[in-house]
């Protein structure tokens, strides 16, 4: 039995009202070549037991991050999420993916958002943070649009150290909003100089720290040159845990900081849902996209929380809104805040130190292998190695041997001529045995 509420007669009446003959007529704008002319090739329905058996068999073909030595990063990191996080986010008072639409009745949710914003502002060294975006890449694109509004310019300079997927999202968003993108070449060695690309038409410069290739930079000089030209410095952070060890972007002069918050509280989840972080200076707050929770007092002087500055938002200001985002990653931000609260400031710093130490061990081990060199002079928990041959084949061979080695740079930058490079990430979940297994297997494969 199919649970469709409309009868054939209902559908006929609706089609007649709008003046078309069939439902297919509504899709005439889809090019013929893109239309699937035959039924989707899926098996027929089956009983629950049979479906479970089939899907379990399919799922077993995945090599899960937690089951083998795992060194994959590139903007998504495997960290240990305390069991308390999952328990607490599932409490019925909290469990919703959304920001509430009658917000002030949900004081607990608003308080968590307020604390989340406070944490993000402290981590990034900024004055104000919003209640979160969809993910790091969309937050990055929003930062570019915000810089265009603030400077009344339209040109963004993107560093070659910016994650290629972030760059792609920025380019897509800008294409339809009259933005101009100047993208520097991929910067595997961390030596690029963006200063020459900045002039009085630059709206913003977008850099990532640590970069996609793992390099760390002192951004103070860059910030100075940006500001001297009336441009804004946007800093993207794809590994939030790095902020426990690295000078914050805010302290180095950033005007907008965006980030991927998945590392705290959120598992890899096959790539999403993730958590976009967005922070800026207070003077720019009215051009900041997204929801913002504020602290206030009620009629009796008691502390309370509200959604504030919402007249910037799409549901009130329509096409003149700062962004089309009307929501936030509620559940992911809750997990972030609970995880970071459990860690505390000292715990967060220790976690960062541990990540760096594990990565140092991995880099030292790999550098011993003949033909393998580490490109980085500095890194946090991820670095780039050069292999004596194409990295993609090596990574595949290692996967067959039960080691998930890292990301071949060619997977994300296929035409950059960087086929012999591999990104390697380590976290607190990496053990000495993992490093040894990786080192031994790579040495053997390259022999």
């Amino acid at each position, binding site marked *: 039995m199919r649970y469709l509420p409309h009868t054939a007669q209902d559908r006929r009446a609706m089609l007649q009202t709008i003046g078309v003959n069939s439902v297919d007529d509504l899709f005439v704008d889809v090019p013929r070549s893109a239309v699937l002319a035959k039924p989707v090739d899926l098996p027929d329905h089956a009983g629950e037991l049979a479906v479970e058996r089939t899907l379990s068999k399919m799922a077993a073909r995945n090599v899960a991050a937690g089951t083998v030595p795992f060194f994959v990063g590139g903007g998504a990191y495997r960290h240990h999420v305390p069991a308390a996080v999952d328990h607490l986010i599932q409490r019925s008072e909290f469990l919703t993916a959304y920001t509430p639409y009658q917000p002030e009745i949900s004081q607990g949710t608003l308080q968590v958002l307020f604390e989340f914003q406070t944490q993000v502002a402290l981590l990034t060294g900024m004055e104000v943070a919003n209640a979160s975006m969809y993910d790091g890449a969309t937050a990055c694109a929003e930062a570019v649009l915000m810089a265009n509004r603030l400077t*009344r310019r339209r040109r963004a300079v993107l560093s070659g150290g910016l994650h290629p997927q972030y760059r792609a999202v920025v380019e897509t968003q800008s294409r339809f909003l009259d933005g101009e993108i100047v993208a520097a070449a991929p910067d595997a060695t961390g030596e690029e100089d963006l200063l020459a690309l900045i002039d009085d038409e630059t709206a913003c410069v977008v850099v990532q720290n640590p970069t996609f290739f793992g390099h760390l930079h002192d951004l103070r000089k860059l910030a100075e040159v940006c500001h001297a030209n009336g441009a804004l410095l946007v800093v993207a952070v794809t590994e939030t845990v790095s902020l426990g060890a690295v000078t914050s972007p805010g302290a180095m002069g950033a005007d907008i900081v965006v980030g991927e918050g998945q590392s705290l509280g959120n598992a890899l989840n096959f790539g999403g849902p993730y958590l976009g972080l967005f922070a800026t200076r207070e003077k720019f707050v*009215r051009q900041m996209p997204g929801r913002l929770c504020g602290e206030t007092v009620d009629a009796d002087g008691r502390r309370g929380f509200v959604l504030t500055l919402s*007249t*910037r938002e799409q549901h009130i*200001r329509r096409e*003149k809104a700062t962004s089309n985002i009307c929501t936030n990653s509620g559940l992911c931000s809750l997990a972030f805040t609970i995880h970071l609260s459990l860690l505390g400031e000292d715990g967060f710093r220790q976690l960062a130190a541990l990540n760096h130490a594990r990565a140092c061990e991995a880099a030292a081990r790999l550098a011993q292998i003949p033909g393998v060199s580490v490109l980085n002079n500095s890194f946090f928990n991820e670095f780039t190695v050069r292999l004596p041959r194409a990295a993609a084949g090596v990574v595949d061979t290692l996967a067959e041997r039960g080691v998930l080695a890292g990301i071949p740079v060619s997977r994300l930058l296929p035409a950059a001529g960087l086929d012999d490079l591999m990104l390697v990430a380590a976290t607190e979940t990496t053990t000495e045995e993992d490093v040894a297994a990786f080192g031994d297997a790579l040495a053997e494969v390259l022999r």
Partner: protein
Amino acid sequence: MSDVRFTKDHEWVRLEGDTATIGISEYAQEQLGDVVFIELPTVGADVEAGGDAAVVESVKAASEVYSPVLGRIVEVNDDLEATPGLVNESAEDEGWFWRMELSDPDELEALMTAKDYKAFLEGLD
């Protein structure tokens, strides 16, 4: 007493010499309620008649303020940044938004006089 003209979008214009001062009407501020923020245009910017020039944000809504006439912005009321409430207290005087040089002062003739505007408002109720 200089001549004040009004638009259907509830802006007022007062011409003094070659310079026009623009703000929102007493009626507009009443409709908006407490004004909490004003985004002013940039000095030196050219604006068209009917084009966006400023944004006024109240506790209820954010609204565009349109330039009633074509011209170049020569001054903005910086006091509104710190005290947007001036618009509520004195919409048609101290709560002015910007001053501009007009490209064509005759454009003002097409706008409503105070008397016409009063009749227009009565028609709205």
